[in-house]
């Protein structure tokens, strides 16, 4: 995305991207499925070949979620040679009663995230922490990936991607660098006393005016958000292995502080954790397709 000189820098705007996993050929695949996760802030599409990640795309959810679903799916297919018709089953998921027009079924994002987390991190997963653009989910599951307990908080912006976007704008640091900046402090300052994003923003502004450097204010803000996230997690109970999904899972400033507070190290992902929902949906799509054609 090019930014003209006259346009003010938008620190909150994270980069959109697509990717095809090298070394795979869809012509050899028996079952080609897809999952589309339309979040309130970001939309994700995943194409899976025989239940394995093949290609994906991540973009900002536009005003009309149906249109975004089509866009993000097409972007994931781009450069692969695949067409929408080649997909044998598509499952939609995401925020609220989302509508993915070309999906055969919708499955709750809780179930998709648990399933996707199992793919990304393996069968030892017992606790999934998903921090998205506008919500925070804590999911406890068993060894089969079945949900035992869950909690979702999408009422309050604190600790969500939106809360971090607001802060990135305030201190003028691009959001993808925010976490790193917050970890560059020598000594961890106390967390800001407010978790409410509006009040925390005012408090941070006062700290900046008092002469606090950006890293220190970032650290204080991240510390408060991490505190809140741990509170939510503790409600469902934390059992090893703990894993993180969603866009904010990429913010090292949040994840490391959550680690410190819990005394548990979350597993490190090899796949972009923002894809967990769409990936889980694509895997459900495979299972549903197999059921349909009598393979199960």
């Amino acid at each position: 995305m090019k930014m003209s000189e006259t346009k003010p820098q938008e620190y909150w705007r994270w980069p959109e991207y697509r990717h095809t996993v090298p070394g795979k050929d869809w012509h050899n695949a028996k079952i080609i499925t897809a999952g589309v996760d339309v979040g309130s802030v970001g939309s994700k599409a995943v194409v899976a070949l025989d239940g394995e990640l093949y290609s994906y795309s991540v973009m900002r959810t536009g005003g009309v979620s149906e249109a975004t679903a089509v866009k993000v799916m097409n972007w994931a297919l781009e450069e692969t040679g695949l067409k929408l018709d080649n997909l044998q089953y598509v499952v939609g998921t995401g925020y609220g009663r989302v509508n993915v027009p070309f999906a055969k079924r919708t499955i709750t994002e809780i179930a998709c995230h648990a399933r996707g987390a199992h793919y990304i991190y393996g069968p030892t997963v017992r606790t999934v922490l998903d921090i998205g653009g506008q919500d925070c989910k804590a999911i406890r599951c068993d060894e089969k990936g079945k949900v035992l307990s869950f909690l979702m908080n999408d009422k309050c912006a604190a600790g969500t991607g939106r809360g971090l976007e607001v802060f990135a704008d305030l201190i003028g640091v691009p959001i993808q660098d925010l976490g790193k900046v917050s970890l560059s402090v020598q000594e961890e300052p106390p967390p800001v006393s407010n978790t409410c994003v509006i009040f925390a923003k005012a408090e941070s502004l006062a700290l900046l005016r008092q002469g606090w450097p950006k890293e220190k204010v970032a650290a204080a803000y991240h510390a408060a958000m991490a505190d809140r996230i741990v509170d939510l997690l503790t409600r469902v109970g934390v059992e090893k292995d703990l894993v993180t999904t969603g866009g904010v899972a990429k913010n090292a400033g949040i994840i490391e502080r959550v680690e410190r507070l819990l005394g548990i190290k979350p597993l490190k992902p090899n796949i972009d954790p923002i894809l967990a929902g769409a990936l889980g949906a694509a895997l459900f799509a495979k299972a549903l397709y197999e059921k349909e054609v009598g393979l199960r």
Partner: protein
Amino acid sequence: MITAGIDVGAKFVKVVILKDGKVLERAKALVGFDVLKSASDLFESTIKKTGLSRNDIKRIAATGMGRETVHGKPPVNAEEVISEVMADAKGAFHLIPNVKTVIDVGAEEGRGIKVGPNGTVRDFVINERCAAGAGTFVEAMARALEIKVEDMGSLALKSTQIIPMNAQCCVFAESEVVTLIHSKVSKEDISRAIHDAIASRIGSMVLRVGVEKDVVLIGGVALNPGFLPPLKRELNSDIIVPEYPEYVSALGAAVIASEHKE
């Protein structure tokens, strides 16, 4: 006897000078980055207007979020600090002796108070630390609508239809307002939805202390004409808004200062 009350709020500092039970002077100013300076400057300019000096004032009580800032600190040198709920109850009682329920909505907090005999506090509930529960919400939405916060209320009164607002958080509501504007919903209808939302939140909290007449509304948000109609509907009750509602807390502090027994 002359006493004074100073209410150091989140957004405004208010001063009331009381002589023998009657308000001699009242003034308010925005709280700047330096809270002590804002409060002190306002206090000094106010007593200057009355021709009094600090020594002429027998006792000063401070209330509000920043009350400790002026506690024993010159030039205000407040002798005592009082909780907001106590100041609210006493101030409302001073103006309306039959008050039983006080609702105070300020910049950062909303409070519901059940008043006991002689303007004391029987029960209270506070809606705090969440911007959606106080005046900040209206202010933030005014920014999103790109209109002055003083005009929000009158705009809401011109609304012709009810639009539901789903977001319960100030940050999410700002995005929702932007979406509504793009969907060509009128600013009048959006403003009304905003006032309905906050009245619903405040009203629900007040129900926890019970609604008993006379119900009195005070605080900065009481100045907003768009807030009163939905609040009356929520509580299914008449509501009295005294003159200068944003000063009632400071007034209450001044009254409490005058009742102090050595």
